[in-house]
């Protein structure tokens, strides 16, 4: 059973309120600063990525985020009905060595990987993306 469930449209208009609800849920817990930051970061990066990809295809998409607080970790589960996307398969470009080399893509995924201990993905039978990210607490 999740400790907190957030459901909202995958739009930039809906995002600020959803992020605020996440922070309210975190305020009710006594998480250390570093894991708390990582939870917020993973939420921001995953959700805004879904929003960006669904808006670029002019599709109406919704997101559900389940948050579970366990003894040594926080488990975030994201489910959306956007196009299939497994972030584990995304090949990160090499780190840029100069401003000229710095590209646009991949930074969010890189930060999610750095903030988490484990990432799982499946495309469900209902044709939804289901992503689970574990963050050490």
């Amino acid at each position, binding site marked *: 059973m999740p400790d907190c469930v957030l459901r909202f449209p995958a739009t930039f208009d809906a995002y600020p309120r959803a992020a605020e609800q996440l922070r309210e849920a975190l305020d009710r817990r006594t998480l250390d600063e570093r894991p708390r930051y990582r939870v917020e970061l993973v939420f921001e990066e995953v959700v805004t990525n879904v929003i960006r990809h669904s808006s670029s295809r002019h599709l109406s998409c919704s997101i559900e985020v389940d948050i579970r607080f366990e003894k040594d970790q926080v488990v975030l589960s994201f489910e959306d009905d956007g196009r299939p996307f497994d972030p584990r398969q995304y090949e990160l470009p090499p780190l840029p060595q100069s401003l000229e080399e710095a590209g646009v893509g991949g930074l*969010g995924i890189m930060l999610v990987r750095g903030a988490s201990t484990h990432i799982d993905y499946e495309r469900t039978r209902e044709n939804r993306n289901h992503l689970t990210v574990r963050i050490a607490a």
Partner: protein
Amino acid sequence: MQIEINDIGDNLRRVTLTGRLDTPGVLGVEPRFVTGLVSGGKNAIVDLSNVDFISSMGIRMFISVARNMKDRQTKLALYAPQPRVDEVLESAAFRQLVPVCKDAAEATALVQR
């Protein structure tokens, strides 16, 4: 996210950002930040001491502005990031692209070189 821009002397602009550099924060502040720094024609230092949170959106904003400023032969340096913000900048290897200094004095000396 709030932004304050002050000129220091003839050739330096200081920007103080307060709040969260997440997606809503960046969308709110980016136009003024870009105009203030890129069009300003001055070197710039950015105070991060009041920035509680940064995500990839905030990092991309700094990279884009730094690139534009470099094209105009002006320099950008950030300073005084909070510890968790600094960790994110580290994990993005951001310092290889834009200087992040301890304080305003170090940032000023770097951009005015």
